[in-house]
């Protein structure tokens, strides 16, 4: 495809995205070959429960990807393996009860360890919510994001200890609930009291 990506990405070019040449992922530019590009959680009816994007895409593009991928994954039969090729990416997905966890990784990435990443995230949710179910994710979606953001950063695992992730979330939650800290939590860091909104916002 000679010359296509040479900066002629003005309005005229949008017309061919999603046409034969799916230039969609090319617009992201050169990423490394080991990046998780996004993670989606959706129900068996195809309802989106969480979307974490690690590459810049427009809302329209995200919607399109989500729609197509959800359809593709939901069409898979139970006996099929957890990996599929989709556009330029590898999709790793696993169903936990009524929720599909779906990650898009790049060509050189290790699918099996991605399954472990997904599993670790589910374990974290489970520990946090106590026997997590889809309803927990629905009603506490922001917490699901907070937990994810303590586990992964930019698509990579930032912490491999379950305990440490949960500890950090716990502390941050406490901070939200306006508890004064005088003690040192981690080496060399003093956490002063913070004014925060009176509790109740996120209580059911």
């Amino acid at each position, binding site marked *: 495809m000679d010359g296509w990506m040479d900066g002629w990405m*003005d309005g005229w070019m949008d017309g061919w995205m999603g046409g034969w040449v799916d230039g969609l992922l090319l617009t992201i530019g050169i990423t490394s070959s080991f990046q998780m590009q996004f993670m989606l959680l959706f129900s068996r009816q195809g309802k989106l429960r969480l979307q974490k994007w690690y590459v810049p895409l427009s809302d329209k593009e995200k919607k399109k990807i989500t729609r197509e991928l959800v359809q593709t994954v939901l069409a898979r039969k139970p006996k099929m393996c957890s990996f599929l090729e989709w556009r330029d990416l590898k999709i790793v997905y696993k169903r936990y009860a009524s929720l599909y966890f779906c990650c898009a990784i790049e060509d050189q990435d290790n699918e099996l360890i991605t399954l472990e990443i997904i599993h670790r995230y589910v374990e974290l949710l489970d520990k946090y919510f106590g026997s997590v179910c889809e309803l927990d994710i629905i009603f506490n979606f922001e917490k699901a994001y907070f937990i994810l953001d303590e586990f992964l950063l930019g698509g990579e695992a930032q*912490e491999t200890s*379950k305990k440490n992730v949960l500890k950090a979330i716990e502390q941050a939650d406490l901070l939200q609930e306006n508890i004064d800290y005088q003690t040192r939590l981690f080496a060399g860091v003093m956490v002063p009291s913070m004014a925060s909104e009176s509790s109740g916002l996120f209580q059911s």
Partner: protein
Amino acid sequence: WVCHTPIRLRELIRTIRTARTQAEEREMIQKECAAIRSSFREEDNTYRCRNVAKLLYMHMLGYPAHFGQLECLKLIASQKFTDKRIGYLGAMLLLDERQDVHLLMTNCIKNDLNHSTQYVQGLALCTLGCMGSSEMCRDLAGEVEKLLKTSNSYLRKKAALCAVHVIRKVPELMEMFLPATKNLLSEKNHGVLHTSVVLLTEMCERSPDMLAHFRKLVPQLVRILKNLIMSGYSPEHDVSGISDPFLQVRILRLLRILGKGDDDSSEAMNDILAQVATNTETSKNVGNAILYETVLTIMDIKSESGLRVLAINILGRFLLNNDKNIRYVALTSLLKTVQTDHNAVQRHRSTIVDCLKDLDVSIKRRAMELSFALVNGNNIRGMMKELLYFLDSCDPEFKADCASGVFLAAEKYAPSKRWHIDTIMRVLTTAGSYVRDDSVPNLIQLITNSVEMHAYTVQRLYKALLDDISQQPLVQVASWCIGEYGDLLISGQCEEEEPIQVTEDEVLDVLEGLLVSNLSSPVTRGYSLTAIMKLSTRFSSVNRIKKVVSIYGSSIDVELQQRAVEYNALFKKYDHMRPALLERMPIMEKTASNGPTEIVQTNGEAEPSVVEPKHPPPVGQPASQVKNTVFGLVSRCLSLMAFYLFDLSKTVNFLSIGIPPMTAYNKNGLKIDFTFERANPNPNVAVITIHASNSTEADMTDFVFQAAVPKTFQLQLLSPSSNVVPALNQGTVTQVIRVLNQQKLRMRIKLTYIHKGSAVQDLAEVNNFPPQSWQ
């Protein structure tokens, strides 16, 4: 207007979930959005957080939430932790770097990176590392670098991944992180170790200098890995008996990058790789994940042969694993190594072939690809049996690739010509409608060159036609052969099997049947008409043939009509040339491995120089172009006669079915002509070939042609024939454009090239497309 407290998030979620229809939900959403909007307008600080959270929920349901973007920024700027938490989350969900408004975050992030509370710093690092634009990364790289050197492991690990993101966005900034990497691996904290390894990996991948610089870390990495394996149970990092598999995998990956192409590094990691390969528990996925990464590393570095065999055997064991995921990665890896470690992979051939019967589509596909890669002169018969069986029973999505694979393998390793023809026949009759268009000319060439098999081939193809005329590739090849070897067919010369008894009329019945059948595509009709015409010099029923040809002189199919008209002319004014023009095709020379692209032969009166030599078609070239070099050869000669006879305007590609060519650009000695075709099978696709020629005395090098079309169109460019437009019109550069269009076609083109030492660039609008090109 009664102001009331905005409803809580969870109450909203509960309410929305009670909606029984989409319309009901939409109504609730709109109502709540209106309330939120007015709340935003009132600059309500107290409930901003609650409102944005609700907006994020509605956004996830698919409703627009852009009016909340600035509110997120306000939340981020707030002093309350709760506000920041939701504000940053909202920024990550609602903002993206294409919108200028995201830059307003930069200052807030900068402040928060220096906040006294590590959780606030964490939020800032996370957001920057997830969605920071290049500008933001440039502005804040210094802050990230500072945090990379902190002793606070909570922040250090986040800073490392944030640095990875910065480097991905602004590679030039990589250097500034180098000093901070100095003692990253001395950390005991696994989080920091893991993220540090990721950072080092990113740097090594992007810069050969960095890679060389970090090679000295190999012993340290080996030690860390060794400790992970040898150390006892560590509850904090244990996963099914394995200590921190995530870290192990990342270290193995970094070792791969460092060891690649470097003997010393590869040697230094040899032992640990062998250790991991033999000692890792394989009963669960986590162990296999590590083994998988180990195998990938062993195969990529300069490992000794024993280690490589060990790796392939691990993959072989994976193939027998009950877990289909494991089988899948095994097949993928084997596919990567089959070229370099062919013999080792061959040992697992039967297991691989068994995977053809797997239920999973991805596994089947890989097994198929691998099977084809393993075919050689020794196993061709056995392998082909399996693959043809697979072709019979596989899903339609595989048939085209499998058919192509069979043809290729047969071409390379056929033990005999007879076996070859039989294999081709088997594919055409069982998967004939899935065979790729470009297989047809390839097969025709093959058949033409198997001189001693002509009688057998035409007989088998004829019999196949009697059974089924729905599969176009089969029909096309059969038509061609009957046209060429019809004389052998009726004279019953077949040696390989019992010759059939068939008369000229019966053969012509079949070919005429193809012309009228609505199962036949226009291309097929062209093949059969030409075949009928050729038989005029091989059969005695010339009058019948003349009649058929004259009927089609008024066909509504313009292609067919043109052909028939020309053939008519051959009967009338140029009858003396007819035998020579229609004589048997000679052996065709292949100039490119893709197939018969340049037909080097003379044929009767047609001057070879007048026949335009085609450039070898690039991969993905529309089939019509390749097909025409063989199919159109005879017709092309005739068409050129027509050109002389009827003084038609110069059409370089006569198969343009009536769309006249045009000059799109003509400036400074560079001329670009467009010629047109309709693609087959989608008639809404216009296939435009550009022909660039250069009348100046100097070559135009580094020639790049780019095109743009309005949003309502879809456009595809295939590879150009070359990037040098030779001087003095000595040749043309051609390139194929495909446009899906139903409206007036407009195009902008951009040309860049080097001429007489200076770079030239020009833009032009092309508006003079002939109406037929888009109607």
